[in-house]
């Protein structure tokens, strides 16, 4: 340090006064270090939060298998869930795992074409006015809290399905519809980014070869943007998989495997939210809920891996 300071003094003397009036380099260096520490701190906090949540959830979630002796095979393959039966408790979470995957995949099936269609409309068909209308609409959809989606579903969708489609109204179908609307903004936003970031010369080249606009979209633009479009869908699915409140209000929370779209069902998240408050810490019931949480975490890791894989394909 003293060496630097020495050099500094000499330099200072050589410099004209005008330059010396500028902020000294020392302060700039201080700011640099401060900024660096600040940013590193942020990163460390985020990383440690994630790691500690994973460790905590892992240790909590495994307790039902290690401490309470619940069979892992039973947990993920049995369809009988009856943890409060003291004589013969059963811990088969398959109906909930199935329910989670069913609503996730079905809502992705609905939201993907809609979202990508909307994205193409915004970027290719009507880039000026289409975007002006659709963009705020999508932002508004993001802003609506999930409990409101659930409430609307419970008040409007469930009676509608009961009267016009059949069944009780509380069904996989209701859950799917509510979730589709909820994940639509995610899919649309990322798909729009994907489409608009495609280089212009792709379109121009295609037009030059005599392709129509639709041919260009279908044969050139969609294939080029496909990996990002898939990422959009997977991100939407990740959100659908984790959604609890809105789904709980419309799906009926039945512990049986659904046999049709109109059957009531349950998901991992809805069972957790329904039972969390009633169970005591450390009991088997409570621990099995943590195990379900662990499954949710593992699935979200799987979704992230899938997204990583898709993005790595895009670079090639």
């Amino acid at each position, binding site marked *: 340090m003293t060496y630097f300071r020495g050099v500094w003094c000499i330099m200072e003397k050589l410099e004209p006064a005008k330059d010396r009036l500028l902020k000294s380099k020392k302060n700039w260096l201080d700011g640099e270090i401060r900024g660096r520490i600040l940013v590193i701190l942020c990163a460390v906090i985020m990383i440690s939060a994630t790691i500690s949540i994973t460790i905590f959830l892992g240790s909590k979630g495994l307790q039902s298998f290690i401490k309470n002796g619940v069979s892992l095979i039973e947990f993920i393959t049995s369809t009988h869930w009856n943890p409060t039966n003291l004589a013969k408790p059963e811990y088969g979470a398959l109906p909930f795992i199935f329910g989670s995957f069913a609503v996730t995949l079905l809502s992705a099936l609905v939201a993907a074409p809609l979202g990508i269609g909307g994205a193409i409309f915004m970027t290719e068909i009507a880039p000026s006015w289409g975007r002006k209308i659709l963009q705020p609409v999508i932002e508004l959809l993001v802003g609506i809290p999930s409990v409101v989606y659930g409430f609307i579903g419970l008040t409007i969708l469930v009676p509608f399905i009961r009267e016009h489609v059949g069944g009780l109204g509380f069904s996989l179908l209701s859950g799917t519809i509510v979730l589709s609307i909820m994940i639509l903004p995610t899919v649309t936003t990322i798909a729009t980014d994907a489409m608009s970031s495609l280089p212009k010369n792709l379109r121009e080249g295609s037009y030059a070869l005599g392709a129509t606009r639709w041919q260009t979209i279908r044969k050139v633009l969609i294939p080029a943007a496909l990996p990002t479009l898939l990422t959009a869908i997977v991100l939407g699915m990740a959100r659908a998989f984790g959604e609890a409140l809105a789904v709980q209000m419309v799906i009926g929370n039945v512990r049986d495997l659904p046999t049709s779209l109109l059957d009531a069902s349950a998901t991992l998240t809805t069972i957790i939210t*329904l039972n*969390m*408050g*009633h*169970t*005591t*810490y450390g*009991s*088997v019931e*409570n621990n099995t809920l943590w195990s379900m949480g662990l499954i949710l975490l593992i699935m979200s890791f799987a979704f992230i891996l899938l997204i990583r894989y898709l993005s790595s394909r895009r670079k090639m």
Partner: protein
Amino acid sequence: MKSYKKIGLALTLAALMVLVAACGGGASTDKNEGLSNKDSKNAELSGSLTVSGSSAMQPLVAAAAEEFMAENPNVDVQVNAGGSGTGLSQVAEGSVQIGNSDVFAEEKEGIPADQLVDHKVAVVGMTAAVNPKVGIKEIKKADLIKVFTGKITNWKELGGADQKIVLVNRPDSSGTRAVFNKFALDGATPAEGITEDSSNTVKKIINETDGAVGYLAFSYFTDDSVTPLAIDGVEPTEENVQSGHFPIWAYQHSYTKGEATDLAKAFLDYLMSDDIQNTLLKEQGYLPVTKMKVERDAEGNQKDL
């Protein structure tokens, strides 16, 4: 520009610090007051009390807490709702002074029930409720069990309308479900049905769905939207619960870890006072525990008082 930003940042930070300091400071003074409170029992009540637990009891206890705080201006009572399991767990680990539960602590796994002291503050009666279009007003207990276990699937078998029976259950771990299973279904496990946690949602579903049957506390039978059922000819009324003729009722418990002391004791005494038992409880749809002519233990054995 840059200096403005810096000032802004500094101000924000300062505001944050003040906020943090205020919160932290508040908490620590509360603790001190709580401690000093132990020394002077006869002095005016002060300090803070945290209550947690059963979401069904939350409105009642919160309303009582409000009146308690109005009478004792130096007291701060916080009533959280997190569910009976949360309440029992938190009072057992000492993070709250009072834990509310709609079941006996003995019935919950993993709770050191011997360390907790039970204060029965209210009684809640409940009964099966059906959609009005079903057209029945009473049911035999044996038939009720058959309805809930799925052995009877159409109301016409019980002299009602030709409608498929739709069950509306509570979550496995819910206290309401435990009470209903024990005293209405004699311990039978109900068949699968729609499961909802909130009584208001259950009421809404029963009202909207043809053939629906569920169970609700008496306080939800305020209009004609659902029909409460008499069981074995006994009407679900306050008097019948108090005399022990109507079987489906449960205590609302407030647990303390060890004997209640100071503020917690004062608050629990307040809950048991005639003032609260005879007026506020009724307003909230509960039955006063002081007027019960029977009592029950954790195993469900009933005896006359």
